[in-house]
């Protein structure tokens, strides 16, 4: 997680097709964000302007006072012997990063206010007699900064020694091990034995701060990032610093708890292992996890995330920077949605309804189920109602709706999806489906009418619908009552990722992949098309909705020949005007550090990372 605050926005989203291409990383299709993210408005400084491109300095009038700036409108100074040109007000850490000098820091965060309390970023400046904190000090014209002098190094070593003085010997049981700034910086700036004589100051090692966060006060270095985050980003000041000196601790105010919907971001920005997610704690070691760039499906905001996975299980979501959508943050509601990827999944095909509770249903090969579904659907061509879920990706919807239109003769689509929830004041939207916009665009592109879910309920109750083809079995209403209505259907072919009372009523149930199991795209609430990457192969017998549609289509005499979601998008996406300018390949977020073949990349040998020959590694399951 320590890298989360050092990366520049990646610009995953593609510009829309309308008008000339823009160079903003994320152009919008629709209106302005309906729920604009509030919070710190720091913006990363622009790339260094080289001197030749800047306008020439004005003719020298030689007034008294400081010399005129070398590049008017910008500040020019020298860092470690290299000239750097930055906007006025840029701090030294950001400027140094531009010329490849790394100034270490704990408390600084580009999206938070400056505290300058960790003292790790002290550097030598030509206009100051003592070392100055790099995070707090704006650059001035002609300044010369040095970040590697013996004086600076001694300061860094001393700071590390103080920070480790009372730090418990915890790496072997600490969740942060492997992604901890203390570890990184100790090896880079200190690397000396302890000089502590006597005991360390003991504090509370498991202070439960709220429903999702637990604090180890001994590991805390009091950088105050979490306190500033809660004050400034979600603007819910729930944390404070109490006590003095060695007995200073982070805590909640008496009688309250850390229950904000953004509380887990404090775990991400904690540079050490003090704040921990109660959900992820002791589940996996960070170096066994691989990360796939993905998109959160918890609501229609489409926060960019990394899905951290091992073998065929996702262990956590982490926010991935995207200036246009979620900056560096995401909500706790979205983080919890990874659980549906691991448990309660439909893993094999089933033919026939469940007879009473507790009875096992016969699992059949997918091929057999496809044949059964094709046979059932062939008998009712033209009379099949189609229910599409906005949880499915663009590729899924393109393929399934094309199949519904061309083969089943559907003209209208009922919109399913998860029930609406409460929007909060920052990122979370009321629409809990990641791809409603995509469904609307695709239906429009294919010439299909969208009808609300209530119409389907009425039609079912009225006995007008006898056959239903469902792409995703999430429903906005009460799932129990809808399942009872669905029990009366003659034909109910359902493609589902997760089990529900509704899937129990399917006459043919087909297992579908979740979004981390294939490459695809969503359209988020503001109209941004966002690509996500495959993390691992589908669990069980599942394939993508699009692949199920292709199999069904072929079984019913169609010619659908798509073999990948990429092909689906290239072939069918043409019909959707909004997708025309979207480069499916180029807009995929990079999934490895370096281009080319990495020595140990994610799944380089075709096996999922963390794969072991004899079953999954012995890590406590989810």
């Amino acid at each position, binding site marked *: 997680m320590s890298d989360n605050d050092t990366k520049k926005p990646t610009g995953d989203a593609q510009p829309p097709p309308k008008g000339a291409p823009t160079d903003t990383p994320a152009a919008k299709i629709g209106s302005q964000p309906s729920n604009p993210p509030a919070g710190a408005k720091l913006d990363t400084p622009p790339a260094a302007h080289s001197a030749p491109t800047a306008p020439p300095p004005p003719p020298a009038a030689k007034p008294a006072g400081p010399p005129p700036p070398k590049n008017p409108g910008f500040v020019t100074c020298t860092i470690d012997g290299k000239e750097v040109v930055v906007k006025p007000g840029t701090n030294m850490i950001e400027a140094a990063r531009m010329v490849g000098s790394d100034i270490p820091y704990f408390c600084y965060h580009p999206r938070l206010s400056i505290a300058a309390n960790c003292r790790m970023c002290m550097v030598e400046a030509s206009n100051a007699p003592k070392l100055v904190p790099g995070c707090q000090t704006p650059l001035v014209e002609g300044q010369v900064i040095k970040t590697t002098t013996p004086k600076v190094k001694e300061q860094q070593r001393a700071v590390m020694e103080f920070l*480790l003085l009372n*730090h*418990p*010997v*915890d*790496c*072997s049981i600490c969740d942060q*091990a*492997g992604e901890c700034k*203390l*570890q990184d910086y*100790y*090896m880079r700036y*200190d*690397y*000396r*034995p*302890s000089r*502590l004589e006597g005991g360390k100051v003991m504090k509370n090692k498991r202070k439960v701060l709220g429903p999702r966060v637990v604090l180890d006060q001994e590991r805390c270095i009091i950088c105050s990032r979490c306190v500033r985050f809660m004050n400034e980003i979600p603007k819910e000041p729930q944390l404070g610093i109490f006590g003095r000196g060695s007995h200073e601790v982070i805590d909640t105010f008496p009688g309250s708890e850390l229950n904000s919907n953004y509380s887990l971001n404090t775990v991400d920005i904690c540079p050490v292992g003090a704040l921990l997610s109660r959900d992820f704690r002791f589940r996996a070691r960070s*170096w066994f996890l691989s990360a796939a760039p993905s998109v959160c499906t918890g609501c229609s905001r489409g926060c960019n995330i990394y899905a951290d996975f091992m073998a065929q299980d996702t262990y956590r979501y982490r926010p991935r920077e995207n200036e246009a959508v979620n900056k560096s943050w995401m909500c706790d509601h979205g983080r919890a949605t990874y659980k549906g990827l691991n448990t309660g999944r439909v893993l094999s095909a089933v033919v026939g309804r469940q007879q009473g509770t507790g009875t096992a249903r016969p699992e059949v090969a997918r091929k057999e189920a496809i044949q059964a579904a094709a046979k059932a659907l062939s008998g009712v061509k033209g009379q099949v109602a189609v229910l599409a879920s906005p949880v499915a990706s663009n590729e899924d919807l393109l393929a399934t709706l094309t199949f519904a239109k061309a083969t089943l003769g559907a003209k209208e689509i009922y919109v399913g999806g998860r029930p609406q929830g409460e929007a909060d004041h920052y990122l979370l939207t009321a629409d809990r489906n990641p791809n409603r916009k995509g469904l609307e665009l695709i239906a429009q592109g294919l010439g299909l009418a969208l009808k609300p879910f209530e119409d389907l309920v009425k039609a079912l109750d009225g006995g007008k619908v006898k056959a239903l083809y469902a792409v995703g079995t999430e429903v906005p209403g009460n799932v129990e009552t809808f399942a009872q209505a669905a029990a009366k259907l003659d034909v109910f072919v359902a493609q589902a990722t997760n089990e529900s009372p509704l899937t129990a009523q399917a006459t043919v149930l087909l297992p579908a992949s979740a979004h981390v199991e294939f490459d695809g795209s969503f359209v988020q609430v503001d109209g941004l098309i966002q690509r996500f990457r495959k993390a691992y192969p589908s669990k069980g017998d599942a394939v993508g909705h699009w692949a199920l549609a292709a199999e069904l289509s072929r079984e019913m005499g169609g010619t659908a020949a798509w073999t990948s979601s990429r092909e689906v998008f290239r072939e069918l996406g043409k019909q959707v005007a909004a997708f025309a300018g979207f480069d499916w390949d180029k807009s995929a977020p990079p999934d490895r550090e370096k281009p080319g073949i990495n*020595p*140990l990349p994610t799944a380089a040998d075709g096996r999922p990372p963390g794969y072991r020959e004899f079953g999954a590694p012995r890590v406590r399951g989810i």
Partner: protein
Amino acid sequence: MADTHKPVSPPTPEAPNPDTDAYAHEAELEAHLQTKRMYVNMGPSHPATHGTVRLKVELEGENIAEIDCEIGFLHRGFQKSCENVTWTQCLPYTDRLNYVSAMMNNFGFLNAVEKLIGLEIPERAQYIRVIGSELHRIHDHLTCVGATGMELGGFAPFLFAVEARELIMDRVAELTGARLTTNFGRIGGMNRDLPEGWSEKVIKTLDKVMEHVNEIDGLLSRNRIFVDRTKDTGIITAADAIDYGWTGPCLRACGVDYDVRKVKPYWVYDRMEFDVPVGEKGDNYDRYLMRIEEMKQSDRIIRQALQQIPAGPIILDDWRIALPPKPEVYGTIEGVISHFKLVMEGVQVPAGEVYDCTEAANGELGWYMVSDGSGRPYKVHVRAPGYPILSAVPHIIKGKLLADLIPTFDTINMIGGEVEQ
């Protein structure tokens, strides 16, 4: 178009077939043996060659018309494997290069990594490296000389050699914990000090080993059969040897005085008094003599080193390079962080490239390494001394007797592990 390949007249069906009818050519009945070329495979597993290599020999009578050395039976992808592990984890792979003198590979690799980082290892560690290397040089030469004797018909020298070798292996096992694959030494020094009382044992062992060496010397060096088979066979000129990239005892047998220990002294070789034997003719006998003499010189070096070796640390006290002492790891956060980072991410070797070489038993063991600044090598290339030497075998042996191939192959001392990596 006329078919030019068509015989002028069709063969009569009654005419004898020279391939099947023994009486086809009357002349053959009274004749000499047919002189057609014979193709023989020696190896990959042949009792008269030690080392897994297939020699495709084309014989013209008893003379070798063509020979092709086919290697690859012990290929392990050593260089590529190194890119997937930390620098320290490469070390056990180097054991398998020249597995008869594993410590020399260990130390050669470590020396190159240390040069890339820019480290000066503690004096005591340098002495231990010299002692270990020279012990294994004797070990390697004993194997070569013993096997040569055996493959030329004398079993006794082999038994003497193996007994001496066993004594050295016991000392090596006491020192490193392993008989063959030692995995000894770490970046920045050694992982283990000399065991208590080990030095005295080594002196006694050397006395015994040298007794055996003298015995072998006596059995072989003036032995008529041995001398006839080795003298003036397998000759290579100094110029050719240099062209092929020969190094080590094989090159010195040609009269070229090149020994990395003298030319570019590393560790504490410049404090040792020892001579570099140089041959004259570059034949098998000279190569054999080089090894006998080098064992005696190694004996001298070890005795001096054991006398001179100072007390002191055996590994650098830098927690970015060497693992902290265990009490520090278990008891302090500084120690546990350092241990964690060194084990999980490896020693951070600064970006750059290096070539470094040491004098291994068969010659110059060179390492070309590139680091991208991470804990794992970006590229490791090893210049194994055996490879260029083996590649000159066709040049040496073409046109010579098949019987000469055996001593030649013996004295160049091909080791499959290092040739094929």
